[in-house]
């Protein structure tokens, strides 16, 4: 086993151990924080497929995070108010069932990613960063000014959605759901990286001409990566909305996109567990620094700067060595 594998195992176990300890010690808020880490890490795992493996610097992944959130919010709000989602051409009811919500979140995010990706991937470099940002902003302003689902106020769901056989209101059980989904996504992501698609996508990041000359279209590879990436981030959005029992347009904001990206870089770009390490550190800092000073953003900024300038490869890169991948 390489050093990185050990670090990954330690992270996976650590993320499990902390809430278990908190459960025993009756510290439910610590469990909530661990759940938040797991969900944000899941969003990061999604973005990492586009960003780390595919080299697609998307500053618009908040779009999928928000769509996932609104999939949950809209479905649950209709179920909560006993109003059907639509009545024509067929009656569709809302739902409070997590698996159904997840499925809808994933499908909606994937379809949107297909559309945004198909248009955005015509560009590259800075243009790609900015066009993805533009699509994110469109959805953000749409969500704010669209009155049907609360506009800027967002939607409050009074009771967390259900999962068959579990009591999702119990923090530890909800954590378990998120943790399992995170581990599944990590396993999927690891398998994807070793698959033919992963090899080709990774090569397309390094040398698109090469991939073309062996008869594979980089555009299609990237589009599929973008769709998978968006779908996973959308799933995370649905969970995040369920964690807060609330969804609002701030999930669509460009700062959200920036933060998801921050997790990845903090943890280590293209590292399997990078988003996990990054999200954990981010939440820890938010709690630790936020208590110390009103101006904790200054400290966060300095730390981020230090990581980018001096600790390339993020936490995992620094601990596991092997140099940063972009050299």
């Amino acid at each position, binding site marked *: 086993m390489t050093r990185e594998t050990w670090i990954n195992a330690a992270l996976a176990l650590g993320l499990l151990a902390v809430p278990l300890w908190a459960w025993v010690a009756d510290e439910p808020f610590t469990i909530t924080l661990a759940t938040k880490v797991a969900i944000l890490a899941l969003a990061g795992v999604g973005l990492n497929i586009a960003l780390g493996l595919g080299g697609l610097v998307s500053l618009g992944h908040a779009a999928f995070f928000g769509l996932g959130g609104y999939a949950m919010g809209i479905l649950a709000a209709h179920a909560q108010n006993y109003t059907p989602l639509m009545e024509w051409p067929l009656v569709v009811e809302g739902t409070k069932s997590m698996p159904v919500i997840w499925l809808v979140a994933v499908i909606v995010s994937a379809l949107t990613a297909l559309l945004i990706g198909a248009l955005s991937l015509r560009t590259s470099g800075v243009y790609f*960063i900015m066009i993805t940002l*533009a699509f994110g902003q469109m959805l953000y*302003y749409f969500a704010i000014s*669209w009155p049907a689902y609360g506009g800027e106020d967002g939607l409050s769901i009074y009771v967390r959605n259900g999962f068959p056989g579990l009591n999702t209101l119990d923090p530890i059980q909800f954590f378990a759901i998120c943790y399992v989904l995170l581990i599944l996504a990590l396993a999927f992501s690891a398998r994807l990286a070793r698959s033919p698609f992963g090899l080709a996508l990774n090569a397309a990041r390094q040398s698109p001409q090469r991939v073309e000359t062996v008869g594979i279209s980089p555009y299609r590879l990237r589009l599929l990566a973008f769709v998978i990436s968006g779908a996973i981030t959308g799933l995370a959005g649905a969970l995040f909305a369920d964690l807060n029992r609330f969804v609002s347009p701030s999930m669509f904001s460009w700062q959200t996109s920036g933060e998801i990206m921050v997790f990845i870089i903090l943890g280590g*770009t293209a590292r399997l567990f990078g988003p996990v390490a990054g999200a954990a550190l981010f939440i820890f800092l938010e709690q630790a620094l936020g208590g110390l000073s009103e101006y904790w*953003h200054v400290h966060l*900024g300095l730390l981020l700067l230090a990581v*980018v300038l001096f600790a390339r490869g993020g936490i995992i890169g620094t601990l596991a060595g092997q140099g940063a991948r972009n050299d």
Partner: protein
Amino acid sequence: MALPGKPLGEQNKLMTTILLIEQVLNGLQFGVMLFLTAAGLTLVFGVMGLINLAHGSLFMVGAFAAAAVAGATGSFILALAASLAAAAAAGALVEMLVIRRLYSRDHLDQVLATFALILIFSEGTRWLFGSFPLYLNIPTWLSGPVTLPGGIQYPLYRLTIIAIGLVIAGGLFLLISRTRLGIRIRAGESDREMIAALGVDISKLYTIVFALGAALAGLAGALVGAIQSVQVGMGEPVLILAFVVIVIGGIGLVKGALIGSILVGLTDTLGRILLPEVFKLFLDPSTATSIGASLATMSIYILMAAVLVVKPTGLFGAKA
């Protein structure tokens, strides 16, 4: 519930030509202001290949410096000078401490490091100046409206902004096409090694270009600060708009930034005014106002996405 008053349809007044001209002037003024911010951003990208998200913070630094100096001295001219100086100094400092380590990095590292700079600048400014907006106003000799030919009442200050912006745009074109600094900037855009071979101190050149861009952003901040609110976070919306502008025009091109600015300024201003009117043609006025306003908030992003889908490197960008 039934609302008192007559239906809104009756207020759907005829858009007179005068109103339309005034709105075009407004769009132009907004565009010129955007140009001042976008010019620095696009220069820095063109010459150094750097994406600087912290450019909006320099805009804010200019506005705060102007407000502080105007408060202390009462002079608007001194305040503008201070905005230039403070933003240039902040820009040069940041370039030397942080930015120059980023030139060789990929866009991702640049985005992140400059995102971190935003956090530092914003909270640092709040720490220095507090959470309440500062006061900066139009000097009396520039305040109030003037009457233009055709009877249009238009604020003198906004006309001044248009004039200053156009003068600076002209100066920038001259600087780039006629001066030694400009030659070096153009050389730096095309070939960094060549310019180093010419014996130009490239790191000094980069600092100067960065400070120049910062100074322009700072000036824009001060000019706009007098008619808007000088507060922490004022830079970010402008930053996003400036990016939209340079991406539409083609990144790295001052000409692209100018055309992009005017286009965005006009789209935004006219979209806000015209879209609700357009929807009123086939929807009831209240819904039309709401839908039109919603669409107007998205209009520049729709414009940008449309431009990029058709021309993936912007209107004037070379093929990648």
